[in-house]
């Protein structure tokens, strides 16, 4: 699960529980409670959207739109629609609460096996499938599990799925720059290192690494062996 979501899911669930309760109290007299109903749906939609809970946000937005139509010809069945939206949100909230509770248990019981597995995994981000493939092959020959992705597909989801200890990224890509890669990695999990690899000069790479907040950089100019050695060092540091 996205680190941001995992971190804030318990709070979201608590807040949503209160808002759903407040909204339900308005259903008995929707005309009088229309503004509160709309406000609670609106806030829930915003909070859910910020955490990427798009299904929840969509239902909340529908509820808000309906609540705002109360009192107008379009609001004829508003009470029924809003009540249905609240039931749907309550069900979704139950599922989210289970995830939040599961995350708490998993975090409390983190196993060294999971950490050990993650410690040898490298995700390579490069818009050139050939470059990415060559590095991937070189790492796997050294017993390091590696996966490649390009600048269009890279994101929180693939980080969550692959759970690498290290991200090795090209610097200049058409759809993503290295700073965005570093930002996304940090948001996903603050413990994952990022190594910049590029044909740029050491001076330029150093500057890029500093600006992006990367853990290190290495030029491609020396061939694959120095890159592989650098990856091994960073993986060893991550394992400590």
């Amino acid at each position, binding site marked *: 699960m996205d680190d941001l979501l995992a971190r804030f899911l318990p709070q979201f669930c608590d807040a949503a529980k209160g808002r759903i309760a407040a909204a339900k109290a308005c259903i008995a007299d929707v005309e009088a409670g229309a503004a509160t109903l709309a406000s609670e749906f609106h806030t829930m939609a*915003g909070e859910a959207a910020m*955490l990427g809970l798009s299904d929840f946000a969509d239902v909340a937005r529908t509820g808000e739109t309906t609540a705002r139509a109360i009192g107008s010809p379009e609001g004829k069945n508003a009470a029924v629609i809003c009540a249905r939206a609240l039931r749907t949100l309550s069900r979704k909230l139950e599922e989210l609460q289970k995830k939040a509770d599961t995350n708490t248990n998993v975090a409390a019981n983190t196993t060294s096996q999971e950490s050990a597995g993650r410690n040898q995994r490298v995700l390579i981000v490069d818009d050139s499938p050939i470059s990415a493939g060559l590095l991937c092959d070189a790492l796997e020959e050294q017993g390091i599990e590696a996966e490649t992705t390009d600048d269009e597909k890279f994101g929180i989801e693939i980080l969550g799925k692959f759970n690498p200890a290290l991200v090795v990224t090209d610097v200049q890509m058409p759809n993503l720059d290295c700073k965005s890669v570093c930002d996304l990695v940090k948001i996903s999990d603050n413990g994952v290192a990022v190594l910049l690899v590029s044909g740029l000069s050491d001076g330029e790479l150093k500057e890029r690494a500093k600006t992006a907040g990367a853990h290190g950089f290495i030029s491609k100019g020396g061939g694959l062996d120095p890159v592989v050695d650098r990856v091994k060092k960073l993986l060893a540091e991550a394992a400590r």
Partner: protein
Amino acid sequence: MSDKKRILLLDDSPLVLQVTQNALEIAGYDVVVANDLSEFEAHREEVDLLLIDVQMPEAFGDELAGMLRGARGVNKPIYLFSMLDEADLAARAREANIDGYISKRAGVHALIERVHTIFAQGEQHG
């Protein structure tokens, strides 16, 4: 003083404030949050970018933004930050004579990208 760009975020949802602050700080910014107008006013002059929610109990954010740009003469970047649909947000931003809007619907990662772009464009224009 830190070289980091400072952002002030006004929103009536404490959770939105926390999530956004957390994400923007990880992305390298200093973030000040305000849950109401008095907190907002206390920090307004210290920052490089103002992000303002629209539908709040005390005021509509676009009206506040328009007042800041107009009557108060605030010329730093001001953006609406809201769940309203984009056509509505665009119209409100135009009406308020501010720099634009950012939709909450795209999530926090899109917000970060947009903030990076805002500051990059600001640097280009000097």
